C-alpha cells in the first residue's frame, strides 16, 4: 500500500485512540462528596455489591462496602450516601457550555494589578458556595471569564456582584450632664460641647465627621444634649474562622418561615474593641441598650442584641442569624453569606459585563442539529460531485477523506480544546477547504494534458494551488489567535489545525488514492 495512505490510516487510528482511550470504562466518577473516604475524581464500581445508581437512592445503616479505583473502602453510614456521581467519561472530548449548558459571566475588575487576587477570592467564594466545575480565565488586563457547569444566573450574579466588605458597628450615646460627659475605652476621655461641635479627648468633631480614638474608628451621628456615636467594631480582616460544623450552624423552623444561624470567630483586636465600646453602654434588663449591626457591602444583614453579661468582655465569637421563606432558601442564603465572609473581600469592586445562561437541552439539540446538517451537507456535496464527474465511486474516497479530517482534528484537540460553537464553525471551515482541495486535485489529475505530463506533475501543480489557498486561510485566522477575550480563538485554532493536517496528511493521501483510481 502507498506510504501516504498508510500515514493517513496511522493518524486516523492514533486520533481514535486519543479521542476514546477507554471505550469500555465502567463505574461512576465522584463529582462531589461529603463522605471523607471518597473525593472528587474517584471512580466507584459498586456499593455493597450493588449498582452505584441504585445504591445512591438507598438508606444505609452500619458499614457500607464501596469498591473504588483506589481499593475497597468501608464507610459507617446512617442514611443516604451524600455523594454525587456521573458516568466515567468514555472519551477525552471536552464539551463546553454551548453544548452542556451552564452559566458564564465576564466581569470587569475596576482597578489594575489585582486580577490574580480577584480570581483567587472569587474561586474560593464559588467553590465554597458549592457550584460545580468552575473555570476561571483572565482576559486582557482587567477582565475575568467564569464558566460554571451548574448553578443559576441569580446565584452567580449574587456571588460575583458582592465585593464582600464586612463591617460590624455599634451605635451608642454619650450622655452629657451640664454639657459634660466622658467615654471610657482603654482610658477615659472627657467630652464637652463647643459651638455645636463635640470635643472628645483632644479631638474637636462635628456631625457626620469620623475620627479615631484608641485605634477605634468612630462616626458622629448627632450632637444635641447628648452625643450620638457609631463605633466600627469588626471588619472583614477581623474574621478568623467561619464555622461550618453542625453545632454552630443551624436552620430552624419558625412561625413565618425558616431561620438560619452560624457562628464566626473574630480577632483579638476586634474583641478588644468590642470590650472597650460596650463598657459605655448601659444595660436594660437582660440586654445592652444598643444592638450590634452587621453590614455586608454597606447593606444591613443582621442586628444582634448584646447580652448584659457580655458588657466589657473581649468577645471573639458572634452568631449571625437571618430568615427566609423556605428551608431551601434559608440554606442557600446562609451558604452565600458564609462563602462571601470566608473568601474575604475582593481587592476592588467588580462589575458583571456579560452574563449568559445556556440551556443544556438547547446545547444537546444543537449538537444533534449539527450532525443532521453535516449529513445533509455531505449528501449535497455528493450529488454535485456525481453530476459533475459521473463517477459515483469517487464519492467514497472523498467522503472518507473528509471524515478522516474531522477525526484527526478531534484527535489532535481532544482534551485540550473545548468543543463549543466556534469549534464547530472551525470544522465547517476545515471541511470546506478539504472538499475544494479535493476537487482541484481531481480536475488536475483527470484533465487531458496538452503536453505529455505525468500524473505526479499534474498533482504537483494542484498542490501549489492547495498550499496557496491553505496559506490564505491560515493567514486570515492568525490574527484571531491574539485577539483579546479569546473571541473566536477556538474557531481559529481548529481551522488552522484542520487546514494544516489537511495539507500535511489527508491531501497527500487523497493524491495517492486518485493516482490509483485515475490509472484504472
Amino acid at each position, binding site marked *: 500500500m502507498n506510504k501516504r495512505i498508510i500515514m493517513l490510516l496511522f493518524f486516523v487510528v492514533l486520533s481514535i485512540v486519543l479521542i476514546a482511550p477507554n471505550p469500555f470504562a465502567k463505574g461512576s466518577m465522584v463529582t462531589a462528596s461529603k463522605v471523607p473516604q471518597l473525593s472528587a475524581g474517584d471512580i466507584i464500581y459498586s456499593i455493597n455489591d450493588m449498582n452505584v445508581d441504585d445504591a445512591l437512592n438507598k438508606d444505609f445503616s452500619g458499614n457500607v462496602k464501596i469498591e473504588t479505583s483506589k481499593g475497597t473502602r468501608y464507610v459507617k453510614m446512617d442514611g443516604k450516601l451524600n455523594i454525587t456521581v456521573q458516568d466515567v467519561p468514555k472519551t477525552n472530548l471536552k464539551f463546553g457550555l454551548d453544548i452542556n449548558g451552564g452559566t458564564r459571566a465576564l466581569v470587569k475588575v475596576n482597578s489594575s494589578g489585582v486580577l490574580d487576587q480577584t480570581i483567587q477570592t472569587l474561586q474560593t467564594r464559588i467553590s465554597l458556595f458549592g457550584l460545580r466545575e468552575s473555570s476561571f480565565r483572565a482576559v486582557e488586563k482587567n477582565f475575568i471569564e467564569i464558566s460554571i457547569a451548574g448553578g443559576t444566573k441569580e446565584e452567580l450574579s449574587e456571588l460575583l456582584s458582592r465585593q464582600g466588605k464586612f463591617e460590624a458597628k455599634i451605635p451608642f450615646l454619650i450622655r452629657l450632664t451640664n454639657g459634660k460627659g466622658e467615654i471610657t475605652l482603654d482610658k477615659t476621655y472627657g467630652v464637652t460641647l463647643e459651638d455645636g461641635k463635640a470635643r472628645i479627648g483632644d479631638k474637636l468633631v462635628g456631625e457626620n465627621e469620623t475620627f479615631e480614638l484608641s485605634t477605634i474608628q468612630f462616626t458622629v451621628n448627632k450632637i444635641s444634649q447628648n452625643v450620638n456615636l457609631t463605633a466600627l467594631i469588626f471588619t472583614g480582616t477581623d474574621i478568623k474562622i467561619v464555622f461550618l460544623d453542625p453545632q454552630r450552624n443551624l436552620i430552624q423552623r419558625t412561625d413565618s418561615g425558616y431561620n438560619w444561624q452560624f457562628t464566626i470567630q473574630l480577632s483579638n483586636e476586634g474583641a478588644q474593641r468590642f470590650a472597650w465600646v460596650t463598657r459605655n453602654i448601659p444595660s436594660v434588663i437582660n440586654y445592652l441598650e444598643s444592638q450590634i449591626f452587621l453590614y455586608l457591602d454597606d447593606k444591613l444583614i443582621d442586628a444582634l442584641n448584646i447580652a448584659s453579661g457580655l458588657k466589657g468582655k473581649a468577645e471573639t465569637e458572634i452568631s449571625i442569624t437571618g430568615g427566609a421563606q423556605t428551608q431551601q432558601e434559608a440554606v442557600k442564603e446562609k451558604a452565600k453569606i458564609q462563602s462571601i465572609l470566608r473568601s474575604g473581600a475582593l481587592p476592588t469592586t467588580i462589575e458583571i459585563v456579560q452574563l449568559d445562561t445556556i440551556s443544556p437541552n438547547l446545547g444537546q439539540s444543537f449538537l444533534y442539529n449539527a450532525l443532521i446538517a453535516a449529513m445533509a451537507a455531505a449528501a449535497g456535496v455528493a450529488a454535485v460531485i456525481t453530476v459533475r464527474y459521473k463517477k459515483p465511486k469517487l464519492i467514497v474516497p472523498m467522503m472518507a477523506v473528509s471524515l478522516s479530517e474531522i477525526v484527526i482534528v478531534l484527535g489532535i484537540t481532544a482534551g485540550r480544546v473545548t468543543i463549543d460553537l466556534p469549534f464547530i464553525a472551525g470544522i465547517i471551515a476545515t471541511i470546506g477547504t478539504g472538499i475544494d482541495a479535493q476537487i482541484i486535485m481531481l480536475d488536475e489529475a483527470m484533465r487531458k494534458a496538452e503536453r505529455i505530463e505525468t500524473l505526479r506533475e499534474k498533482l504537483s501543480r494542484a498542490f501549489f494551488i492547495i498550499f496557496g489557498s491553505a496559506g490564505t486561510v491560515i493567514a486570515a485566522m492568525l490574527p484571531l489567535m491574539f485577539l483579546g477575550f479569546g473571541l473566536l480563538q477556538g474557531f481559529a485554532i481548529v*481551522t488552522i489545525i484542520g487546514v494544516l493536517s489537511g495539507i500535511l496528511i489527508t491531501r497527500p493521501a487523497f493524491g495517492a488514492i486518485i493516482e490509483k483510481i485515475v490509472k484504472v
Partner: protein
Amino acid sequence: MIFRIYERYWKLWLFIPLAMLLIAVAILFNNMISTGSILARDVELSGGKMIVLEIDTAVDVDKLREKLPEASIHVTQGATSSLLIQVPYDADETGIIEELSDITIKGEPTVRSVGPVLGELFWKQTQYALIAAFAMMAIFVFILFRTLAPSSIVLLAATTDILTTMATLSLLDIKLSLPILAALLMIIGYSVDTDILLTSSLLKAKKEEMSQKLKNSIKTGLTMSFTTVAALLSIIFISGSFVLEQIAFVLLIGVLVDIPATWLGNAGWLRLWLLRK
C-alpha cells in the same frame, strides 16, 4: 455556448464586478455616515439581551411582535425549531419569558446578556480582526505570486467579494454578530481560493492556451462553488440552529458573489495585463 459569449465580451464583463464593488462601497459608506458603523450590530457587539428557546409548536410571530414591541424576533425551523428574541440590555428577561406562557417551551431558555461597554470592546476587536485578517491574507498573496499586478488583481476580487457580501447583509437587514464575523473571516480566507486557481493557471499559460486554461479553471472553480452551495443550503434548511444558519447564509452570499468577482473580474483584469505584457 455560454463560454463563447463569455469569451467574446470579456472586456464588457469587467464592469459587472466593478459596479458591484462601487454599489457595495456606496451602501457601506452610507451606513458609516448615517449610523457610525458600516454594519448594524447585533447584541453581542453592541450590548443587549438574547433569549433562545427551543419550541415544539408553531409560533405566531406577528402576535409575539405585538406583545413585545421592543424585541426583535426570529424563528428557525429544521431538525428542531427555536425562537430567538433580542431585547435591549435593560429589558427584564423573566418578564418576557412569562409573556410566552402560551408557547410550549422545551427545557430552560438560554439567556445571554452583554453589557454595552463590553459590546463596544467586542466591536472594536471585531474591526481589528477583519482588518488584520485581510492584511495577513494580502501579504500571503503577494508572497505567493511575487508579482505586483496579479496579486493586486486577486486582492481586488477578494475586496469585491467581502464588501459586496457585507453590503448584501446590510440590505437584508442582517446584523453583525460573532458567528457572522466568523463567516466573514472565512470568506476572507476562501474568496481567494478560486482566484489563486485562476491566476496560477493563467500565469503559466501561453497566449494560444489561455482560453482553454481559463475554461478548465472555470470548470474546477464552479464545481468548488456548487459543492459549497449544496452543503450550505443543506445546513440552512436542516440545521434549525441560529448560529449554523447565520454562518451558512453569510458564506452562501460570499460564494455566490465570488463567482462574478473571480470569473468576470479577476479573469478579465488578469487577461488584460497578460495581453499588454
